[in-house]
């Protein structure tokens, strides 16, 4: 198998990187793909909690890189889906425990094992960020519709472009259609105008995301919620389907988006 390595990053913290990884992972796995999620946030691991696998950790990413275990031993199988795995981060180490070339080598190994390797990047633009993007084939930048998050996303896109990689794609998370309508929140157009990269997902604000994170059951497992549907759409777009951006289902916005093409 030759899988695709996909990194989700943002610059700013708290915009939803980990949630996105867990949910895109679940959505891809639900479509029959073999997915390995890797928590790149060494020292501040969260992905295991969001996926509800924290009590099953034996080995972690640093153990693999330092050769204390084999790759397969560190892969925790999420039993709710046939082929979803997590490689957790080490909690007792920090970003300097691994280097970008360690990550690039690991990604090459992982690629042969699965269809998708999803890497959760830490916040920031330092070592951890460089580690997370080192082996990536595709990069998704996630942002919230607020100025500070968009500013950081812009910086991160600039850094990715500086490395002469494939242009990143964008997820706008936590959109609140009512607030956009009132003019109290940046609209999708405002964000796209500024960042000028291709959109791959719109995720509406949804209280269920927090409930699901706390329960360790990504809400994509049950596709009824709005946000869950949005992540399923992202997964379909990653697999090459043309899915209209109707996640917000506000007719005005939809028309504007269609008018853009």
């Amino acid at each position, binding site marked *: 198998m030759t899988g695709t390595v996909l990194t989700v990053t943002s610059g700013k913290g708290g915009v939803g990187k980990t949630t996105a990884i867990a949910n895109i992972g679940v959505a891809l796995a639900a479509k029959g793909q073999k997915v390995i999620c890797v928590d790149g946030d060494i020292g501040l691991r969260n992905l295991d909690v969001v996926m509800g696998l924290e009590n099953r950790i034996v080995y972690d990413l640093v153990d693999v890189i330092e050769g204390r275990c084999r790759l397969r031993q560190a892969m925790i199988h999420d039993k709710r889906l046939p082929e979803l795995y997590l490689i957790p981060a080490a909690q007792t180490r920090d970003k*300097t425990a691994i*280097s*970008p*070339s*360690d990550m*690039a080598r690991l990604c090459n190994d992982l690629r042969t094992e699965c269809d998708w390797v999803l890497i959760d990047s830490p916040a920031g*633009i330092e*070592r951890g960020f*460089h580690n997370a993007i*080192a082996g990536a084939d595709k990069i998704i930048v996630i942002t919230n519709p607020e*100025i500070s998050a968009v*500013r*950081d996303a*812009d*910086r991160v*896109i*600039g*850094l990715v*472009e*500086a*490395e*002469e990689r494939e242009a990143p794609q964008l997820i706008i998370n936590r959109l609140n259609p009512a607030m956009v309508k009132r003019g109290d929140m940046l609209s999708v157009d405002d964000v796209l105008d*500024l960042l*000028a990269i291709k959109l791959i997902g719109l995720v509406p604000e949804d209280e269920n995301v927090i409930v699901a994170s706390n329960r360790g059951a990504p809400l994509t497992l049950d596709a009824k919620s709005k946000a869950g549907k949005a992540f399923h759409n992202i997964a379909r777009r990653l697999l090459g389907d043309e899915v209209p951006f109707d996640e917000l289902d506000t007719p005005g916005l939809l028309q504007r988006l269609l008018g853009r093409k």
Partner: protein
Amino acid sequence: MSNTAALIDIKGIRDGLLVKLGEGGWPALQAALINAIDERQAFFKGARLALDVGGQELRVAELTPLRDLLSDRGIFLWAVLSESSITEQTARNLGMATRLSKPRPPVVRPAAEPGEGEGALWLAHTLRSGTRIEYPGNVVVMGDVNAGAEIVAGGSVVVWGRLRGVVHAGAQGEKGVQVCALELSPTQLRIASEIAVSPKRKGKPQAEIASLKDGAIVAEPWQTKE
């Protein structure tokens, strides 16, 4: 490696280590550097390294592998010093410093007179947050200047796009320079020693030209003569 010493000069400085590379082909220099580091791993481990590459023209394809090689050895490459503007630009793009400490006050020299047809720095892309462009003459940007980006030019600045970052035109004191943009809404605009902040604006953005009038920055809408 017997000639390693001739190629590489290592010095301790306040901010870590300064390594100066001699003349030669880049692959050989890089190999010599890595070799020197591997010979004294304990000395280099955890070091903050500034690299003076002289006139070498390095692009992303050269600098990124070196950064990663050093990073493998626990060395943080934080600055690249060079006489080549290409190398400096690459280093800046990768988020590295290009000066050891604060930049020395710029050498005062007459800025390029607008309209003289002198060469200008041509930037054919959008400047994203975190990018800083310094140039002694005029600067032309085909694209936007996003909030968080900075242009410091000795001469005038023309932005064929939206200007939302910080621009300092006439940075060496030249007062007769202009800043124009299709949408002029900079975070801050400086011309020579004057500073202005864009007023909150309503309505459709229009192309504007800012210049100094009686010691104050004034922006005027651009219009075709009728």
